[in-house]
């Protein structure tokens, strides 16, 4: 077990170094000069330009800048955002709860609908339900997030249409909820404001659906194919022959084995969710890290972008590591084979 964990952790180091290099180079490869963007049409003199570039450390050779970046990471310092003048780490973590809150709701939504739908489709293979579900999931999978988000806003939020849900944001502007945990559902519960929790929950409905649609489609399809494979195994036939109830066969024997594939898929969805969050957060004015990254890229805020990428990539790597460990818990054969 320890060897398994150490091997996995050891593999993380070169991956992490690769991520830092990509993050560092990516933003610098983009055309555009942060100082020129700051000055706009007004422009700055060449002397002032050089002065500002030097103040940001951009006058140093690239390898030296990269080395400083790595040393900074080791000290827990990802630099200072060029636009807000605040430490990148602080800027990231002040927004992170919003993304986590949305991503958690989206993955719960995706799993709650995707898992049972996939199981039923597998059990009723070839039925109308199966075909319909597969059609819907293919549509969901191919849905452009931006278009899907705007469509839902127009349909559900516009007073000319249904007018059921709020358009965007995390809570109605009429509520003055103080930030305690950064999770609006919790903060609104902690506040004295009557109706704040309902407002926060209502604001989560559409972004959750939009962000959860693609993972839901993937989970449903993967669950279906994993279940189909398991349902065809000999031991399932044996269980049926022994007269076990269909619920026990599907729910206990088949599902537990199918879960390995499904959990892998859910684990991989963390990356998809964080990528999807960038668009979803922009449409719904959701103040998370996705929107912050987009703003930082457009401002050529080098430190914010490279720091943000490293932090997001680290989170994805850690979640996948966790998924690897969970394999062992769900199916000890994997652990023993790998050890």
């Amino acid at each position, binding site marked *: 077990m320890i060897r398994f964990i150490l091997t996995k952790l050891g593999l993380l180091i070169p991956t992490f170094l690769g991520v830092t290099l990509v993050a560092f180079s990516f933003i610098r490869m983009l*055309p*555009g*000069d942060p100082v*020129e*963007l*700051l*000055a*706009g*049409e*007004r*422009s*700055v003199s*060449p002397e*002032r330009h050089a002065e*500002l570039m030097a*103040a940001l450390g951009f006058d140093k050779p690239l390898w030296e800048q990269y080395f400083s970046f790595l040393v900074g990471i080791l000290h827990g310092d990802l630099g200072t955002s060029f636009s*807000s*003048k*605040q430490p990148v780490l602080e800027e990231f973590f*002040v*927004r992170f709860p919003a993304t986590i809150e949305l991503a958690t709701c989206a993955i719960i939504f995706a799993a709650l609908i995707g898992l049972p739908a996939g199981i039923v489709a597998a059990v009723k293979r070839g039925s109308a339900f199966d075909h319909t579900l597969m059609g819907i999931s293919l549509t969901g999978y191919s849905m452009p997030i931006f278009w899907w988000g705007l469509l839902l*806003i127009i349909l*559900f*939020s*516009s*007073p000319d249409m*249904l*007018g*059921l*849900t*709020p*358009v*965007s*944001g*995390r*809570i*109605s*502007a*009429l*509520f*003055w909820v103080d*930030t305690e945990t950064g999770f609006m559902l919790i903060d609104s519960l902690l506040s004295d*404001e*009557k*109706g704040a929790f*309902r*407002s926060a*929950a*209502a*604001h989560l*409905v559409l972004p959750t659906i939009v962000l959860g649609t693609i993972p839901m489609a993937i989970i449903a399809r993967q669950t279906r194919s994993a279940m189909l494979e398991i349902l065809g195994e000999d031991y399932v036939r044996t269980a049926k022959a022994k007269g076990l109830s269909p619920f026990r066969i599907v729910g206990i024997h088949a599902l537990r084995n199918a879960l390995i594939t499904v959990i892998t898929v859910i684990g991989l969805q963390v990356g998809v969710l964080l990528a999807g969050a960038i668009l979803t957060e*922009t*449409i*719904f*004015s959701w*103040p998370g890290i996705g*929107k*912050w990254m987009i*703003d930082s890229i457009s401002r*050529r805020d080098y430190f914010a972008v490279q720091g943000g990428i490293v932090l997001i990539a680290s989170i994805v790597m850690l979640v996948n590591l966790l998924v690897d460990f969970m394999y062992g818990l769900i199916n000890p054969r994997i652990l023993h084979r790998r050890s």
Partner: protein
Amino acid sequence: MIKRGLLATAAVAGMLAMGSFSAAEAKTLVFCSEGSPEGFTPALYTAGTTFDASSRQVFNRLVEFERGSTTIVPALAEGFEVSEDGTEYTFNLRKGVKFHTTKFFTPTRDFNADDVIFSFERQRNADHPYNKISGGNYEYFNGMSMPDLIKDIVKVDDYTVKFILNRPEAPFIANMGMDFASIHSAEYADAMAAAGTLDDFDQKPVGTGPFQFEDYQKDSQIRYKAHPDYWSGKAPLDKLVFSITPDASVRYQKLKAGECHVMPYPNPADLEAMASDSDVNLMQQEGLNVGYLAYNALMPPFDNPKVRKALNMAVNKEAIIDAVFQGAGKVAKNPIPPTIWSYNDATVDDGYDPEAAKALLAEAGVSGLTTKIWAMPVQRPYNPNARRMAELIQADWANVGVTAEIVSYEWGEYLKRSKDKDRDGAVLLGWTGDNGDPDNFLAVLLGCDGVGGSNRAQWCHKPFEDLIQKAKTTSDFDERIRLYEEAQIVFKEQAPWATIAHSVVFKPIRPEVVDFRIDPFGGHVFYGVDLKE
């Protein structure tokens, strides 16, 4: 079954949504702002979004622009005197002005001269304890040449401050109304320094303005409440909320749904729907801007005014107003907009006349000319679609035998490359005024100091330069008007730009919003605005 489930879900969502609108608060105006502020100390930043969230609500300046106009009015200074030689400005400060009492600071004294000295010394003096805090870049202070201009700032007494300049500078007073000249509390700065939390000073603002800062949830909301002791009387609104909404279509939906009362920068495509929408009052006003095409006057054959004028005459500007601005613009003939004083309406534009253009090109000995048109990659207030504009100009020039290639670069790169003195081709760009002074257009965009920088035409013409320099140093207002009017005549004769358009600014607001005025500088000022019961 599924249908019933959907209906139930919809009903729950509806109840949830209704819950969000049920918490009626006394006079809370919600502004769907387009982005997040960079911080709350205006002098450190350059974005209008930041000024909206800071200087325009929380702070005052010694003098300010009257709401909805470019007229300078007294604010924290009740008045000022200018010395005969125009190098000394003595400000008489208002007494009894209270700073905000907030959760994080309780002032013990009223506003006085120390606050003025602090606010400017921080930007001016590299050794000031706050100079390097929060990055320490004061781009507007530098951009307006304040370090060269200000010789000294003297506290005469607690309520009198004297600015001593190195040279007479007539636009100085207009500059003092700009956002970077906002007045901070020196006492608050001292308190933060004593607590070792200097950085907080720029994130939790304390000013004398009509609204006091309550809280900022990053990228989400900024909350203010009315300053109860505001020197000009408490604001009619009790609370002000900035609900940060970057997408223009979403802002419109929020406005329709009553989730916000005022929104900036509507999508041009939504304007028609807004105009006929009973939930929206679509306000509009001519913008304090100009969109232009700058030739490179240093490169032949564009160093010849005849060639520049010929190309101007080849451009059908009315067609551009229709196609690019969709009517929401006005043909520009001068380099300053008509809303700025000294606008010379007597100048004659280079009218659209392709035949005359051909003849003038032939007279200049130019044939088979090939050049480039630079199209900005971004939408700006003075040019909603530079690519389309470039295509129209390209077609117009083709009619007079000029072949133009359209080029574009990433915005930062575009700004950088377009400054090059050996740049090939004519650049589409524009400008929105900072302080309502003609100098802010003519000297910045066409002055000799701007060549290789903000003067994209690379045009340095002595008769024009003499006029604008003289206008800058004289304090006789009528004389300034005369000089700038004359400068505009020289500009038209020399034609370093094709002046294209002054755009119209649209501001959609809810019908219940009372007395909102469009700010000519593109900002959003909520003092004086009210909501119908």
